[in-house]
């Protein structure tokens, strides 16, 4: 999403904050943001701050989906030694 020059610094800040949350937290918070925008008697500043946070959350959630690298591993125990090796899916 192109954000242009609109509040770029603040957006970067919101992005940095959003990057620290898990996918699950990001999605839950995003839902909350939408609900707040739906219900609240918001000032313009509050609405824009929520919007920025939401954009950042959507970005980080999408990135986490994109970055996930599938892997199938197998756990083996031999003589008390546990090893995890990657297996090729059939």
């Amino acid at each position: 999403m192109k954000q242009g020059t609109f509040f770029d610094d603040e957006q970067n800040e919101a992005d940095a904050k959003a990057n620290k949350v898990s996918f699950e937290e990001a999605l839950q918070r995003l839902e909350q943001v939408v609900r707040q925008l739906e219900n609240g008697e918001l000032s313009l500043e509050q609405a824009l701050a929520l919007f920025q946070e939401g954009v950042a959350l959507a970005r980080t959630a999408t990135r986490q989906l994109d970055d996930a690298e599938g892997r199938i591993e197998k756990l083996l125990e031999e003589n008390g030694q546990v090893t995890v090796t990657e297996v090729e899916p059939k």
Partner: protein
Amino acid sequence: MDRNPLSVHELTLYIKRLVERDELLSGVWVKGELSNFKAHTSGHMYFTLKDEQSQLKCVMFRSNAAKLAFRPESGMQVLLFGSVSVYERDGAYQMYAVDMEPAGKGALALQYEQLKNRLEAEGLFDQRLKRPLPLMPRRVGLITAMTGAAIRDLISVSTRRFPGIRLLVAPALVQGAEAPASLIRALKLVAAQPAIDVIIIGRGGGSLEDLWAFNNEELARAIRACPVPVVSAVGHETDFTIADFVADLRAPTPSAAAELVVPSRSELVSRITQFQSRMITLTHRVIEQKRLRLKALAQRPVLLRPQGRLLQDRQRLDELVRRLQYSRTPLLKRNRQRLEGLAGRLDALSPLAVLSRGYAITRDAEGRVIREAAAVTVGEQVKVMLHQGELTCVVEATSQPEGGEQK
């Protein structure tokens, strides 16, 4: 050969002693089907144990009967433990049973029922203990056999729903006497691995005996004690295993478990997209609301002609100030001003004021004002009154205006 007959009773006692001396008959397991089962009001149980060829009369006294964990019925396959002796009155041998266990297929069902009731009473199946599954697990543990449809289904469904999913498979025996211990071991090992957010434990479908490992008490306790949520996936749509009851979530098959545990990537993407577009719409709405309000405010007259209003106010202010100052002028001063005004008007009327402009008044010796030259004679003294001072003059000549009126 002397006939030395024994009484019936003597013979019976002899046989009884023979039987009771026998080691095997003093403590033996015997299996068969219950028939003619009667639970007497005294608490004793009378029944016959039979198979295709033979039958055996049995009794179980109240003290032992009361300890049974199940209720025996005719037709049930059971194992009996007890001793064989002779009932003297009937001259018949019978088994005095001290213990009875269900055998065969019925036995498993009964054991299952008993374990289920016990664990349920203990609270292991309490709904409040069920933990929610993570929305997007970082890593999913799979505990099942490495061969067979179960593992294949788990992997294919999981990767189809979310290609980026991380799976950790821990092979385990899923059938046979060693299966419970193998499953428990795998469960503990997987749960100890990093980033495991949920575990699926299961196998493909099978007979009640095949699935028996999942009705194990120790496995049930291990599942309940597992630090991450466990989904049971024992491939049998209709029957529940103990593992199903104790797991955080029961899936009817391994495929269904993968559906429940692994989120669909496309669903997640569309959820994010929906939130995003909803958010954009709502933010636009807030901005539009503010804009409309601003517009409404801007159209109020006070904002439309701010200067006009200001000037009006200024004028009004000046007026008020003036009135205020006036009202504060003392009455006396006002009256004096008024008086001075009146005096000025009086002055203007006074003849003396005319003198100041250069006119003069001439009077005779008696002080009469002389209005015409004929009123005086040559040589007569007159007084001329000026604005400042008076002159005493002697008339040297008189002249009459020509054609002037005679008075």
